[in-house]
């Protein structure tokens, strides 16, 4: 028993060591007040040229790039100059995303699926970044970016079929709801294992560079999942091989019940992680669609110009529960989102369009109704086809397919056994 020889030491005059345990600012019952949060002013942060040396823009990791001011005006060098048409499309996609989320949550409550994950409050990220990327670029998302697909006008019906795991589910009922896969839109099959996609995105980008292609890759990861090894692999490989990839950290403040301080967010920003690898790290208001588009474009330009990878931290707030299995009132004030200083991305986009004179409250009401109809139509159609365990389903024996490209003998025998036993 040699290990036990090491008895705690007593050093008179020295303070005893103690363990620091991070604590979120507010717990249930407390009144949230984000007054202490350091947020840059809109327009304040400079926009460097894309060929800037990463070392020279270390400070960008500490600020928050914002374009929309409190009056809904676009200010400063990061204004991407989106046309009214583009902005109205973005607004529509964000609203579609939220409406779809709401409807699917109801469907889950009605037992039509066992599980659902919303992205409420984070719609500007999926939608804005999708619009900033080009067709052919490859996206390695998490479950929290359905906006990437919706902004490509991907079929809501197809998505709903996946959630209902019905006969229209291209994934044949194999995956948890919302773990979509859409190769047609460059949307990689979402993994239930967090973080793995981050280094895969880098590998894809390396392959594109290897082939002299022009397409770039983008990966997403949550604040919580940055603590996994794959995050470190991604930044290391991206830096070493100057891979044309955008590495997005979606800091929505929470990882289920765990606030971002447990991922290291108390001591430095997630954008600052980039610094240690010699990568540029930008931090952006994730609820500001203009800033999101602008920053993503900057990183995409850089990647396409063979200047390598960029880390983007998107600062946002997870407004809804983690998933339908979660009850956030157990660990945070129920109204915390209402106090979130960066607001609601949909409201802010609307406000901006109105401020520009490109939109009215009346048109907003009209659009909301349109979106509602579209979502309802698509989801209804999917429901009519089938929902979990009811209606048109894939045949269960399909579960033996696609383990390998061709079914090996032992799986054929198992399929026979299964069919014989039913």
């Amino acid at each position, binding site marked *: 028993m040699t290990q036990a020889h090491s008895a705690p030491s007593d050093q008179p005059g020295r303070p005893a060591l103690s363990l620091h345990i991070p604590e979120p600012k507010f717990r249930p019952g407390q009144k949230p007040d984000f007054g202490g949060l350091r947020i840059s002013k809109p327009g304040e942060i400079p926009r460097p040229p894309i060929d800037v040396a990463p070392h020279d823009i270390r400070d960008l990791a500490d600020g928050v790039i914002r374009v929309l001011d409190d009056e809904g005006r676009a200010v400063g060098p990061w204004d991407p100059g989106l046309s009214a048409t583009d902005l109205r499309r973005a607004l529509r996609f964000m609203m579609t995303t939220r409406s779809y989320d709401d409807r699917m949550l109801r469907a889950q409550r009605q037992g039509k699926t066992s599980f659902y994950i919303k992205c409420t409050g984070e719609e500007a990220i999926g939608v804005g970044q999708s619009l900033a990327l080009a067709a052919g670029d490859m996206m390695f998302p998490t479950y929290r970016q359905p906006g990437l697909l919706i902004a490509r006008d991907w079929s809501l019906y197809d998505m709903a079929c996946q959630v209902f795991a019905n006969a229209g589910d291209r994934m044949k009922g194999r995956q948890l709801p919302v773990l979509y896969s859409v190769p047609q839109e460059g949307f990689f099959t979402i993994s239930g294992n967090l973080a793995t996609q981050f280094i895969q995105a880098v590998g894809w980008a390396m392959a594109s560079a290897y082939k002299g292609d022009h397409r770039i890759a983008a990966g997403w990861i949550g604040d919580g999942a940055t*603590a996994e090894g794959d995050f470190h692999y991604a930044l290391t490989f991206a830096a070493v091989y100057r891979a044309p990839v955008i590495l997005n950290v979606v800091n929505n403040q929470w990882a289920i019940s765990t606030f971002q301080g447990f991922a290291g967010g108390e001591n430095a920003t997630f954008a600052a992680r980039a610094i240690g690898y010699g990568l540029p790290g930008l931090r952006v208001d994730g609820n500001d669609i203009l800033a999101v588009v602008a920053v993503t474009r900057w990183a995409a330009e850089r990647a396409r110009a063979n200047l390598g990878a960029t880390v983007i931290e998107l600062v946002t707030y997870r407004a809804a529960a983690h998933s339908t*299995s979660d009850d956030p009132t157990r660990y945070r004030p129920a109204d915390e989102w209402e106090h979130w200083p960066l607001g609601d991305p949909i409201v802010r986009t609307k406000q901006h369009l109105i401020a520009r004179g490109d939109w009215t409250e009346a048109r907003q009401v009209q659009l909301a109704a349109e979106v509602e109809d579209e979502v309802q139509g698509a989801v209804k159609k999917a429901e009519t086809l089938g929902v979990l365990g009811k209606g048109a389903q894939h045949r269960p024996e399909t*579960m033996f397919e696609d383990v390998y490209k061709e079914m090996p003998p032992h*799986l054929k025998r198992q399929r026979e056994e299964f069919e014989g*036993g039913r």
Partner: protein
Amino acid sequence: MTAMTLAQALNSAMDVMLARDDNVLLMGEDIGYFGGVFRCTEGLQKKYGPGRVLDTPLSEGGIVGAAIGMGVYGLRPVVEIQFADYSYPAFDQLASEAARLRYRSAGEFWAPLTVRTPYGGGIFGGQTHSQSPEALFTHVCGLKTVIPSNPYDAKGLLISSIEADDPIIFLEPKRLYAGPFDGHHDRPAASWDGHPHSEVPDGHYRVPLGKAKIARPGNAVTVLAFGTMVHVAMAAAADSGVDAEVIDLRTLIPLDIDTVAASVKKTGRCVIVHEATLTCGYGAELAALVQQHCFFHLEAPIGRVAGWDTPYPYAFEWDYFPGPKRIGAALVKAMDAKAW
């Protein structure tokens, strides 16, 4: 004695050990303030403080690596991996480090680590919340692997595990947390209320590691099972009318081969059941041992009923899950050597 669910019994085990031993601390994702996604640590942070029931970064490799360092210091960390499917990022720290410290230092260093993690299907968790990776751990010498099937055993085995000076992989059948699920998914969910093994002493007691238990005595065929499958096998015996002797292994490593061999020698027949994929599952080792120890007593081939060799398909939970019907058919087949 208090009536407890399996989750409550685990909670009670940790409560008892936190109270008894300053060196015990808990670590894991969402286990502290929140009480764990399966509520197994509910109330413990409130009782013992955030420094003894630690929320952690989302980093299974980091959690296990840090816990090993704590174990080397002299603590007895109890780690929760949120789902067994997420033990893989920690595989190197478990297999190369926790399992090897004592050996490579010839007994000079060790880490008395307990890794709790929910495993198995039955909750529509899809392929990344339903896996049963026990055989990946049972192949790693230096680790012990424990799987309870009821509240009484769960508490006693967890206390033994926390007190053990070896690293323990403690797999919790998540479908049993709330009730003794027997595979009849179309019937109302059973609760632990009134189940004989849900009466749990409030204080400290041990169920020894390495000892199996006969869950249902019988004479016709021996069924080897653990975790959820103990209940499913008993249902299969009842449904099929085959007088099976169901053995609840409780500890996979070290295995109680004596109890297993005695039963098979008595019945002359054996069916092995687990949820993990068939090929190279723990059932393979059981079959190899049974034929070695009981060769001259066996009257029919040893049957294995297991998860198919595919990932766990979300929508086909009950086509995948080795339910009472499949097990019953295997029992019937085991009774008839000509059926093979």
